[in-house]
């Protein structure tokens, strides 16, 4: 197993880490998830947001508890140390598959979004191929390049998100909120799962931990990120009180419908083009992060001297997988709503939890093994 520090020498600071985590989660949360959550939780979407953030809290503590015991190593390196060589290799291969599939799913989301909103005549193949080709060159420059690119894009994205929220806040009708918990606790709990799987994408820190220049403070950073995500989710959730829960549940991309109605008088309107261009840049950064993590894991598992050699072959796989995976846009949304949370949470919650439990049981043996 190649050491991660040998594969990449770049470091990112806490601010860059916070920006990366925020843009990674919020970029896709804004596209499909308001409708997906509204379909399950209906008018209680805001309760789903609270539950999802509360459930994400122990997961973040778990990631840091694991990483703190193995400084300078990532999950691909310490999984075999905790469980043994063969089970560790199986876990690593499963984690690798998870990241490859998740990158392909994000690419499929991007392709579908672009085709549905702006380029209906352009083949989705062209959108995906070009995105993958450009992303390959970005990730070959390393984690620092992605973090710096994101530092530039983050503030533009965040200010536009706040702009959308404040431009539409006068349309919010809080009467849609009542009656609270009309059908009991189950609908908001069902709405929690898709949001939790999205928030738990913070689990990329399990792979990226050795690149944090100040890794002792990353727990505080992650918790602040979770708090900001909570407010941003609630801002996004206001859409349910603008259109009504029924309408949002029937929409495919509710946020797109929302930005189309923003106007100031009759002369300032059609902000959607500008806002969606910025959203796409956020999704692009997310693709870069997941693609980068997939390449790093592949290079580690196959014992490579440099992860850059495997970027293009993985790009070829990522270019074809999104086309092959979903027959149409409905299949994609249905997958995101019903299957993805269970698929993702196994790798975001159950695998790290099992690793931590085994670590606690075999702590002395594992730590003495590392020293020798």
């Amino acid at each position, binding site marked *: 197993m190649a050491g991660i520090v040998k594969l990449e020498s770049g470091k990112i600071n806490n601010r860059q880490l916070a920006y990366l985590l925020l843009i990674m989660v919020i970029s896709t949360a804004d596209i499909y998830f308001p409708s997906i959550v509204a379909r*399950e939780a209906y008018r209680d979407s805001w309760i789903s947001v609270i539950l999802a953030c509360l459930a994400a809290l122990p997961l973040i503590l778990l990631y840091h508890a694991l990483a703190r015991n193995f400084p300078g190593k990532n999950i691909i390196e310490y999984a075999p140390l905790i469980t043994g060589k063969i089970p560790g290799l199986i876990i690593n291969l499963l984690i690798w598959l998870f990241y490859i*599939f998740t990158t*392909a799913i994000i690419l499929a989301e991007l392709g579908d979004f672009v085709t549905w909103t702006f380029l209906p005549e352009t*083949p989705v*193949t*062209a959108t995906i*191929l*070009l995105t*993958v*080709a450009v992303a*390959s060159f970005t990730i070959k420059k390393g984690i620092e390049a992605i973090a710096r690119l994101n530092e530039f894009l983050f503030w533009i994205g965040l200010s536009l998100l706040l702009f959308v929220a404040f431009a539409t806040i006068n349309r919010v009708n809080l009467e849609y909120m009542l009656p609270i918990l009309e059908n009991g606790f189950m609908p908001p709990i*069902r709405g929690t*799962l898709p949001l939790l799987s999205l928030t738990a994408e913070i689990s990329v820190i399990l792979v990226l931990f050795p690149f944090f220049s100040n890794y002792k403070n990353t727990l505080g950073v992650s918790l602040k990120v979770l708090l900001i995500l909570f407010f941003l989710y609630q801002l996004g959730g206001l859409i349910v009180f603008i259109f009504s829960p029924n309408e949002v549940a029937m929409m495919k991309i509710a946020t797109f419908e929302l930005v189309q109605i923003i106007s100031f008088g009759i002369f300032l309107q059609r902000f959607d083009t500008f806002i969606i261009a910025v959203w796409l840049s956020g999704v692009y950064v997310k693709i870069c992060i997941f693609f980068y993590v997939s390449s790093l894991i*592949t290079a580690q598992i*196959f*014992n*490579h*001297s*440099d992860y*850059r*050699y*495997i*970027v*293009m*072959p*993985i*790009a*070829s*796989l990522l*270019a*074809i*997988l999104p*086309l*092959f*995976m*979903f*027959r149409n846009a409905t*299949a994609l949304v249905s*997958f995101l709503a*019903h*299957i993805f*949370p*269970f*698929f993702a949470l*196994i790798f975001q919650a159950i695998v790290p939890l099992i690793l931590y439990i085994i670590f606690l049981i075999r702590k002395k043996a594992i730590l003495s093994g590392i020293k020798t």
Partner: protein
Amino acid sequence: MKFILILFILLVLYDCPNMFRKRLWNELATSALFITVSLLTAIRYVISANDTWANPVNILTYTFGPIARSVFGKVLSE
């Protein structure tokens, strides 16, 4: 479209001579494996787009779908 495809193939093969010159056989073998899998997947996509077990999402759906159904229960089956 054809131009984009040719450009992409060239990009994928861009690193191969480098790996060959530096005698990075491990890297070259892994790259060959990935490119072969991608090509086979692409050929299958062109020949037939019917859903089968070979589709990765079907594998995920059949694996994680029963968990989803058992948790969501009636709501999903409706």
